């Protein structure tokens, strides 16, 4: 390390040390999910894999992951995506996609977490694989939050029941930033039968999108 020319004498107890005069530069703090959770992001192998499979830079990476999720059944979050975004890459497994949506490295966007809930709510999801990947990628608090939300309206639904039973709870995070349980469901105030509430967990839509640019 090269010290700058100017130094400040360190006078306490006449210790002949000097402190290099450093110019503090304000670094913009990214408003990530990790910051909302009060967590520290790790160096994620999954994030690296997603970068490689997509060829997309970090700025657009969450959008690409969301686009993949919509293409595979997170239909509730369908929108018009930028046509410059690469198409879905089937090499990325459903479990990897779901966990990638929950990575704390992304700029905070609750839609990603809600899309993860929908894309993983299918019998095609391997619960054991999801549990292991969630632990590896430090997503336990987010996935447990979804799993607990599912317990209100669909307590038997997998993979959420397995996640509640097997995911460790040692990893603590602030959960108040995560979507309210009502954001993972469809609910009505009125039904054809009249007044009354009908609440339904948002399941993965097995119908593929017809127009790739309008997923």
């Amino acid at each position, binding site marked *: 390390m090269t010290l700058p020319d100017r130094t400040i004498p360190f006078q306490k107890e006449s210790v002949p040390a000097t402190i290099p005069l450093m110019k503090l530069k304000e670094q913009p703090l990214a408003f990530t999910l990790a910051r909302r959770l009060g967590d*520290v*992001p*790790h*160096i*994620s*192998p999954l994030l*690296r894999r997603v970068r490689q499979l997509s060829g997309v830079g970090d700025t657009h990476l969450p959008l690409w992951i969301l686009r993949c999720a919509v293409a595979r059944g997170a239909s509730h979050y369908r929108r018009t995506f930028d046509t410059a975004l690469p198409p879905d890459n089937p090499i990325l497994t459903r479990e990897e996609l779901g966990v990638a949506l929950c990575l704390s490295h992304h700029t905070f966007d609750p839609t990603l977490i809600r899309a993860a809930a929908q894309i993983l709510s299918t019998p095609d999801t391997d619960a054991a694989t999801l549990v*292991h990947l969630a*632990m*590896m*990628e*430090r997503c336990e608090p987010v996935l447990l939050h979804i799993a607990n939300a599912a317990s209100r309206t669909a307590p038997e639904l997998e993979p959420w029941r397995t996640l509640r039973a097997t995911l460790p709870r040692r990893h603590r995070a602030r959960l108040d930033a995560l979507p309210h349980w009502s954001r993972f469901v469809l609910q009505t105030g009125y039904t054809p039968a009249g007044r009354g509430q009908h609440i339904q967990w948002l399941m993965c839509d097995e119908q593929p999108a017809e127009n790739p640019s309008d997923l």
Partner: protein
Amino acid sequence: MNNPLKILQTFDRHLTRPAELTIFGRSALALGYPNPPGDCEATLDVDGIIPLSSGEPDEEFWLAQQANKELRNRGLYITHLFSELDIILRPLPAVHP
């Protein structure tokens, strides 16, 4: 079975040149101290800090993470790696009766 030892031996086998990693958490207790609490050796992962001097993990380091595929059938893994910029290690607070 000492899980942290198994994890690091597997990881080491996948490395082709030396890499520096600061171990912390239960795996550090299991490996660095005599008579650690029983659950330390049973931990499923190794938490590590990549020193600033090592820079960003290079391709070779990432390839060594293929060790996780080998560890998968035992439920073990080594993915909780942090940059030295993000982690502050503190001693355990003194406990007074």
